């Protein structure tokens, strides 16, 4: 199987879907040149009409995507960094997710918002926050955060074909990571987790960059005789409770690893759900491993200290086994 980078796989998904469906187009700041390589080369193939550069106007660009979606198109709105979604927050929370319901089912808003999520490149607080937790709270927005080139491509293609608003988050930290990507077309359904490492002793739930953190931890734990199961949720909303609960039924122990500020995080959600629905299978308290509860610092040393680490995961797993 060809090996591709994470960004190349995303770019391929965009190109394939734009070829397949003429209603699909890309709009955002500097999508022609491609600030992220994920949109690079599309302009050469699809031209000005389908790869649309905009002024720096996140709110209007997001809203324009919504307006285009409810009038028959299938926009992909690139908002670059997750934190820039804060400027478009109103359009996403008040309109994109709610329109169909609010108007009694009269419309649908099939569009994809894309952005880089989280830290890892020492860019400081304004470019380094994870935002998935906000959008998970909103009804009727789907949220995806893949960890591998294969998942990224398959999920983005599904997102573009989905008739609902989807937030597709990718990670700069994973951008250059390579993995197998089949030459043949494939889709990955939204809402399905993937067990990246099977294990018996503890369930580690993760997504995006924390999957690798969890796998790194699992490898070290293996040396200590602990057999960890690492679940990659891939989709955060809707998310695959079934796979997580089945795993906990087997292991009786649960650690959530989430790159997010801790309070009201995805990790909070996963832990709450496990405590509600798998309480009697749990043999130890659930554990959260998240960012430290501070803004994201710039210094690489501090940034690493503020992010969830394999050591943090190992400590949490040991707690559940203590």
């Amino acid at each position, binding site marked *: 199987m060809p090996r591709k980078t994470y960004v190349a796989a995303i770019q391929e998904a965009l190109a394939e879907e734009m070829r397949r469906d003429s209603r699909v*187009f890309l*709009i955002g700041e500097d999508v022609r040149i491609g600030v992220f390589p994920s949109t690079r080369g599309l302009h050469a193939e699809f031209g000005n*009409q389908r790869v*649309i550069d*905009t*002024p720096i*106007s996140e*709110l*209007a*660009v*997001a*809203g*324009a*995507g*919504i*307006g*285009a*979606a*409810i*009038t*028959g*198109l299938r*926009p992909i709105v690139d908002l670059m960094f997750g934190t820039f979604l804060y400027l478009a927050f*109103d*359009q996403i929370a*008040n*309109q994109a997710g709610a*329109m*169909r*319901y*609010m*108007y*009694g*089912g*009269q*419309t*649908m808003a099939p569009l994809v918002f894309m952005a880089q999520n989280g830290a890892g490149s020492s860019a400081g607080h304004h470019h380094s926050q994870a935002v998935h937790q906000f959008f998970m709270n909103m*009804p*009727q927005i*789907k949220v995806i955060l893949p960890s591998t080139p294969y998942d990224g491509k398959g999920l983005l293609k599904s997102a573009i074909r989905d*008739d*609902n608003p989807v937030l597709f988050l990718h990670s700069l930290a994973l951008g250059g990571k390579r993995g197998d990507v089949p030459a043949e077309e494939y889709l990955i359904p939204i809402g399905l987790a993937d067990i990246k490492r099977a294990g018996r002793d503890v369930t580690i739930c993760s997504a995006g960059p924390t999957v690798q953190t969890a796998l790194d931890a699992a490898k070290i734990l293996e040396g200590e005789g602990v057999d960890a199961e690492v679940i990659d949720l891939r989709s955060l909303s809707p998310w695959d409770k079934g796979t997580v609960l089945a795993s906990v039924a087997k292991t009786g122990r649960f650690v959530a690893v989430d790159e997010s500020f801790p309070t009201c995080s995805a990790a909070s959600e996963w832990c709450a759900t496990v405590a509600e629905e798998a309480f009697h299978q749990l043999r130890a308290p659930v554990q959260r491993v998240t960012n430290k509860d501070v803004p994201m610092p710039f210094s690489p040393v501090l940034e690493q200290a503020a992010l969830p680490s394999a050591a943090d995961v190992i400590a949490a797993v040991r707690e559940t086994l203590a």
Partner: protein
Amino acid sequence: MHHRDISLDVVLDIYTRVLRIRRFEEEVARLFRQGQLPGFVHLYIGEEAVAAGVCAALTNEDTIVSTHRGHGHVIAKGGDIKRMMAELFGKATGYCKGKGGSMHIADFGIGMLGAIGIVGGGLPIAVGAGLSAWYTGSDRVSVCFFGDGAANEGSFHESLNLASTLALPVIFVCENNQYGEFTPAANAMNITDIADRAVAYGIPGVVADGVDALEMHRITRAAVKRARAGGGPTLIEAKTHRRGSHAEGEEAFLGGQTYRDEAETAAAQANDPLLLLHTYVSEQDIAPAERLETLDADITRLVAEAVAAARNSPEPGIETVFEDLWL
């Protein structure tokens, strides 16, 4: 003034739209006072000429996006008064099955893409509808209604600029009724004409007499023509006034305070869009008095029927809370 360039049919059509809005809103005011309507209600009385004049320049395929003060826009675009009234009552037979209410009525069948309760929230969406037309090569135009207050939101700026850079067929209709809630426009901006803001985007900006439905129509027609021909967006500022409260029952908010000059308000109210149009229609002999009376009676009956139907309609079933979700 004689509006030779507007055919008699169109004048009568516009008159009908104004009258439908007026009678509908008068009834809504009554119902609200009687405590029959849940939530907030923002009436359009005094501003009818804007929606009527504008929408008469549009086809069914052209789209509009509306505001918290949206009843007039829906009616002017050809909305069904029964489904509107039922929606205001929150009934299952309403446009949105009771899920939207006064601030969120939509009728996608007639290109009415929805009222929006967030001030300025509709502008970007209207840009998107214009983007669709541009993208597909359709000659559809997209109209966005919004208030003087909304013109101070960031979304106004971003939307007009974005529409301008892509030369999209969007017509921005600012309903300058001089107030945003209780704040006079003069306190919220340091300029007299919002139309002047068009300069910032390199697009035409036109001041219109928003009380004169025929002037509104003429100006919109020109903007529509321009937009269909690929000439890009226009900003139209309609100088208008609202007859009544910001929101019905505003006395409760005010607690005895006032915010409008009474004489000024009275003067503005003397300049009534319906009266103005009625005078013109009568003077120009466009329709005999009886025909106008019949029209009024028909509309009044229609509104009354809508109320009766809304009252007799079922509440939405609890199970519908979980309907109209993900496809």
